[in-house]
């Protein structure tokens, strides 16, 4: 077997379990003359249960090994396919092979900072096409694809773009929401680390479509590694003429800046994010006016999630029908589902909408990491519902989830085993709302704290029925009296826990138990 290339992820999650040590061990083998290979540092393929995943190029394809430690390296380079950690050809691993990688097709495959690698794997095709199109036609293609915002609310991207395109102003902006604050989500981070040029390409296309010449990516500060990668990629794109005053020689202009958040969940909400970018406290603005008309520095602004923007180059390159033909009902295209928490095989699953929660948790996930039975999953981040196993046949699509009282949000699925206490989780939902509230609305700011106190009384067995009624009442006040979805959706995790797992709230008074 002739070894040419070894691929090791430099993705933050892979590094967090030792991918850096593995890369250094391979370097040491090369330095000592025991191996003759070149090393490419990729993003992650999202098979986090196999990270650190090392891949060796062979004539048949890339042979995978995982999870690898530095100590395994010498043996792997010597034994190849015969090594016990060999998982076969990576593309043939059923967990990956059954996916439909569209947005994440290159992630983990290429060197994320090589523009020539990017182009060799289909990059820039969408942008080239967009440069030949009228702005209206770009907007029409995105509309026809059926793409809905992947950041949570699922608003049609084409309609948002049309509003911004139709507005007149001296300047317009494209803002990428890379705040990714939901627990259980990491797709934005993976994409920025593993294929940053795709996001950049999507943003340039958005700029062309709506007539904006400046973009910002707002990256949460909890992602220092992704931020550095993205900054580097922006510099490379600038130097190569993919950004700047003459995009790919077209005479068109688009400048891009990456900015760091400062640790506030609410800054993922689009109007808070704009306030934060303007250098202010990240407090929610009332709508209207819509950011599409009155956004950053008062100018018309497209605000889109990383995954929405990253879907756009494919839509232009392969056609709106290609994208629209994936999916079910009004949920078109693919959704990067992030499977996390207490699960055996967690990671990124990109599939057309429509597979069931059961397929995600049982087939991909393989049950819990602790080996105990699955009891609940929370889908859609801290404002998403807790689902019991009896609802596992719900298909993954916006409407199906909404009709059962939940939401798919940014696509995070967090698994809990039977040791979970849903009262504790419901209490946390209130506590999180209290901690992250921007402070503008009284129900959200104060009601959430009362929610925590009431949960504590229930936990002590103190007038349980009365206090449960009070919780429901509070939830209603929060839902109806909040300006944004932080306060407005906190009832979702709380009431889903209560409705689906009432036994956890049926506490006996502490004294009676003595």
């Amino acid at each position, binding site marked *: 077997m002739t070894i040419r290339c070894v691929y090791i992820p430099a993705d933050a999650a892979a590094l*967090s379990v030792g991918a850096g040590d593995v890369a250094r061990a391979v370097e040491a083998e090369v330095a000592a003359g025991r191996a003759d290979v070149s090393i490419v540092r990729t993003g992650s393929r999202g098979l986090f249960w196999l990270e650190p995943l090392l891949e060796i190029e062979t004539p048949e394809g890339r042979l995978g090994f995982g999870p690898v430690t530095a100590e395994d390296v010498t043996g792997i380079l010597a034994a190849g396919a015969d090594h016990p950690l060999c998982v076969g050809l990576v593309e043939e691993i059923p967990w990956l092979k059954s996916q439909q990688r569209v947005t994440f097709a290159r992630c983990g495959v290429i060197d994320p900072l090589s523009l020539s690698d990017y182009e060799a794997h289909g990059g820039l095709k969408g942008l080239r096409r967009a440069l030949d199109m009228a702005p209206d036609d770009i907007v029409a293609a995105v509309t026809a694809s059926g793409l809905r915002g992947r950041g949570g609310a699922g608003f049609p991207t084409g309609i948002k773009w049309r509003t911004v395109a139709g507005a007149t102003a001296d300047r317009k902006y494209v803002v990428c929401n890379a705040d990714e604050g939901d*627990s*259980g989500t990491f797709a934005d981070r993976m994409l920025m680390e593993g294929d940053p040029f795709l996001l950049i390409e999507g943003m340039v296309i958005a700029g062309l479509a709506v007539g904006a010449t400046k973009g910002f990516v707002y990256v949460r500060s*909890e992602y*220092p590694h992704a931020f550095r990668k993205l900054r580097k990629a922006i510099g490379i794109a600038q130097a190569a003429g993919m950004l700047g005053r003459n995009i790919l020689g077209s005479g068109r202009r688009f400048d891009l800046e990456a900015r760091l958040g400062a*640790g506030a969940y609410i800054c993922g909400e689009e109007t808070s994010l704009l306030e934060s970018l303007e250098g202010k406290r990240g407090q929610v603005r009332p709508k209207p006016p819509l950011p599409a008309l009155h956004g950053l520095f008062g100018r018309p602004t497209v605000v889109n999630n990383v995954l929405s923007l990253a879907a756009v180059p494919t839509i232009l390159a392969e056609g709106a029908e290609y994208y629209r033909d994936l999916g079910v009902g009004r949920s078109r295209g693919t959704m990067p589902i992030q499977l996390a*928490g207490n699960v055996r095989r967690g990671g990124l699953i990109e599939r057309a909408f429509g597979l069931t929660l059961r397929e995600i948790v049982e087939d991909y996930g393989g049950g819990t990491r602790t080996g105990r039975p699955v009891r609940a999953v929370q889908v859609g981040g801290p404002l998403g519902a807790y689902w019991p196993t009896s609802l596992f046949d719900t298909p993954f699509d916006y409407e199906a989830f909404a009709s059962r009282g939940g939401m798919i949000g940014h696509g*995070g699925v967090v698994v809990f085993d039977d040791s979970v206490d849903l009262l504790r989780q419901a209490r946390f939902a209130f506590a999180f709302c209290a901690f992250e509230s921007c402070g503008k609305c009284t129900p959200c700011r104060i009601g959430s704290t009362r929610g925590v106190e009431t949960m504590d009384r229930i936990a002590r067995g103190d007038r349980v029925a009365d206090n449960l009624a009070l919780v429901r009442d509070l939830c209603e006040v929060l839902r109806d009296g909040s300006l944004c979805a932080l306060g407005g959706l906190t009832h979702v995790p709380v009431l889903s826990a209560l409705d689906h797992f009432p036994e956890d709230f049926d506490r006996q008074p502490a004294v009676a138990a003595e």
Partner: protein
Amino acid sequence: MSELDAAEVREIAEALRSLDGALLPILHAINDRFGYVDEAAVPIIADVLNLSRAEVHGVLTFYHDFRREPAKRHIVRLCRAEACQSLGADRLAEELDAALGTGTDATVETVYCLGNCALSPAALVDGKLYGRVTTDSVLALVRR
């Protein structure tokens, strides 16, 4: 804050003032340089950006990231969000608090999600991300 520091704060603020929405980048730069944002930096930044002190103070205190007091040598930012809770982050936090207590050169802070939820529990230790952490693995990092 010494005179030297005050001069450096002004220098940092002036270098970044021309950015659109310069206040956050300036606060980040000062926080990174000194490990915290001293109260005495507020009037200097306000002066450079032509803002009121109250505005600068309001922004400084709104965000969880900006430290108001010097940091300890090691900072453990432990994720306590749902995916990490599902694998015992709350117990981990209690154990770390007990083991590190006061008097040590390490602080344990709470963050909500580090994007490493498939490898929970997760922590950022001195700016570096770790997955599937245990009480012992974190203690080993801060006691090196």
